[in-house]
């Protein structure tokens, strides 16, 4: 952090600009000029597949860098409105100085990801957060490492494996990736190149259109691990992808007594399984003094339907932007199906549905 930036975000300066921050003033000179607001200029948008792209970004000096596996909140302004979503960093930490990239698969209903894929132009300024997320490699990477990803869940894992490659990691790394077909796979060329390294095994499984003579077929199965000669109990494992893949891997690891080796990150907008039995009672937004019949959708969606505007980021339970206090009532996590009924706990409203009467501080 530069000394000027440090001075600008110091308390004396803040007391002179109060109630605004120095960034309110710097922003008027140039949007990239900021002490704390992370902004970045788009360097290039690279199409990875028919519906996935990588955006190379040059962040301003407020950016504190990332740890492979983390994501950023990525905001673009379209017709005066800023739209924000969470995207994973996909580049190596040792990549070309001053840039990093995020990779995104365009979600059919995802406004930002669609915009990014089809319309984002180089030189556009985008609004970011600092890198966030706990799904990261430890400081000392163990000798046995397994990375499992499915579909666009490859992005954070890609950042990890690229960083390991560029920092000269010598331990054994196995990368097991599931995609529908080779055409749907992101980073194909890079994966081909990675497979050349002596300590890296790259195994790609195409679930819909398997490659001719493929060693592994179908969805994740414990046999896949056996085939790769992996012992889950002594292999630190990272898995990122759709809920189905994660559930299978988690069950497998639990069965084998290796749950403590597993690090998870969900990477798909959770589909809410409307459980009619849950969709009863009243959802109360306490601060706004609004009550609504529980429709069974996530609390975030129900709040929006009631005309509220809660803060949100990824809408898939990753980024923690939407957490609010739940005053009372039971809620179900849409991915893990866990039900929690503690009073006064904070919940991520984008991945919780109310079960019966619920009161939240919104």
């Amino acid at each position: 952090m530069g000394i000027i930036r440090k001075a600008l975000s110091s308390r004396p300066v803040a007391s002179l600009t109060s109630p605004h921050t120095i960034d309110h003033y710097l922003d008027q000179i140039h949007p990239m000029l900021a002490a704390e607001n992370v902004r970045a200029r788009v360097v290039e948008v690279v199409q990875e597949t028919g519906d996935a792209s990588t955006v190379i970004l040059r962040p301003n000096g407020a950016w504190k860098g990332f740890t492979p596996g983390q994501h950023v909140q990525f905001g673009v302004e379209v017709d005066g409105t800023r739209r924000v979503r969470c995207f994973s960093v996909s580049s190596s930490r040792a990549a070309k100085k001053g840039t990093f990239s995020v990779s995104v698969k365009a979600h059919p209903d995802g406004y930002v990801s669609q915009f990014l894929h089809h319309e984002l132009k180089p030189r556009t300024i985008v609004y970011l957060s600092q890198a966030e997320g706990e799904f990261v490699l430890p400081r000392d990477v163990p000798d046995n490492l397994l990375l499992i990803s499915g579909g666009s869940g490859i992005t954070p894992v890609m950042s990890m494996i690229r960083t390991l490659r560029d920092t000269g990691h010598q331990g054994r790394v196995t990368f097991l990736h599931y995609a529908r077909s080779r055409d749907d796979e992101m980073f194909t060329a890079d994966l081909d190149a990675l497979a050349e390294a002596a300590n890296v095994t790259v195994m790609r499984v195409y679930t819909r259109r398997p490659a001719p003579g493929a060693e592994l077929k179908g969805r994740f199965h414990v046999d896949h691990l056996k085939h790769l000669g992996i012992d889950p109990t002594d292999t630190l494992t990272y898995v990122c992808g759709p809920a189905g893949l994660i559930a299978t891997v988690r069950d497998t690891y639990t069965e084998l007594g290796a749950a403590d080796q597993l690090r998870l990150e969900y990477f798909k907008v959770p589909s809410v399984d409307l459980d009619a039995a849950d969709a009863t009672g009243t959802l109360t937004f306490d601060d706004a003094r609004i009550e609504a019949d529980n429709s069974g959708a996530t609390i975030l969606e129900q709040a929006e339907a009631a005309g509220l505007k809660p803060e949100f980021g990824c809408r898939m339970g990753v980024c923690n932007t939407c957490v609010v206090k739940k005053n009372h009532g039971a809620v179900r996590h849409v991915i893990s199906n866990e039900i929690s009924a503690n009073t006064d706990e904070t919940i991520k409203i984008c991945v919780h549905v109310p079960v019966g009467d619920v009161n939240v501080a919104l």
Partner: protein
Amino acid sequence: MAKTKNAPIKPHSASNHNAAPLSLVNTHSDKKATIGLEYMTYEQLEEFGEELNAVRQRVLDDLGQKDADYIRRVIKVQKASEVLGRIGIFMPFFPPAFIAGILFLGLAKILDNMEIGHNVMHGQYDWMNDPMVDASRYEWDNIAPSKDWKHGHNYIHHTYTNIHGMDRDIGYNMFRIDEDQPWYASHRFNLPLAFILMLVFEWGIMYHGVELDQYLQGKITKEDFQGRKKRALKKIRKQVFKDYVAWPLLGLALVPFVGWWAPVAILVANIVANVIRNVWSFIIIFCGHFPAEVQTFAEEDAQNETRGQWYLRQLLGSANISGHKPFHVLTGNLSYQVEHHLFPDIPARRYPEVAEDVKLLVEKYGLQYNTGRLSKQVASVIRQLAKLGHKPDDPYKIGNSPESKALRRAKREAAAARREEEARAPQLTS
């Protein structure tokens, strides 16, 4: 970085400021509100409400880049003016620059409070999703903390506009500005008190938001009151430190070149800039609600009102000030007070445009549309303050008269009887 950062203001805590306010509901009775019956029938009121809803929706659907560009342009001018002002007042040795600096700083504070702060905190630009113009996060360059101001203004004042006993902004608990307010001896000083309040208006807004009167009457909890007091003290500390300590201290650097009085000059410049803003906002706000032709309402008449009646109450309870474009910007478009009260959550730059629709409806239904030049409205407010400060002849209009006391006692007893009846009612049914 070891820096304690103030937690951002909790989002969506004041009220749900992005939605049109709710109408007043009487839980004990289904009796329809009587507001507006002298102008139109219930069916017409319903239709009137729908027509105004359509106007609001049309503007909401049309919001976009141009509105975003506009507010950012205003912010740019505001910040530039503030920086110029701060530079200007650092030149007390060169009076033209010094005076220009005071004026620029005053202008910056006016823009920050009116066209930016007031409007942003109404949620007019929440659709932009930009943290810098977000109602839940914006804090203005004013002694009053935004959170309590939003509650008192956006929720209480804009929902219960001009209803006696509910809208705390009728005379701010200080002045008798309406025939139907009870007269107390302190109202003899209506005019001099108003003049003093004008000079220190931001402190008045802050005090109003602390709601000491509401606490003493038992209408808010101790916890609520303590929170208000704490927030107010914190904001006072910050504002006073910035304007009256930190910036003058920086002026110490000028002492070797200018003289010992340089920091004092900077302090005075800050005070004058704040007073300029106080006087301006006081005038605009008093002219928005207190001219003689503005109507007020009784709680009983407004209970169970329809959307149309709510709109009508806003229309009759506000007054516009005519003028040119720059004047409107300086007032934060509160010179379109009528339109602002009808549609508090649409960007203020749209008020001139919706005023055309409102005028058509006013003509259609033969309603009253209060408007006039600034001088006319100011004169009207002064006349009202002077006239209503005199002791009225009607004993029921005097707060301390035996007649008024008996009336209040009767009302209290009726309310107590109703509560008692309600407490009994469930036992009867069970």
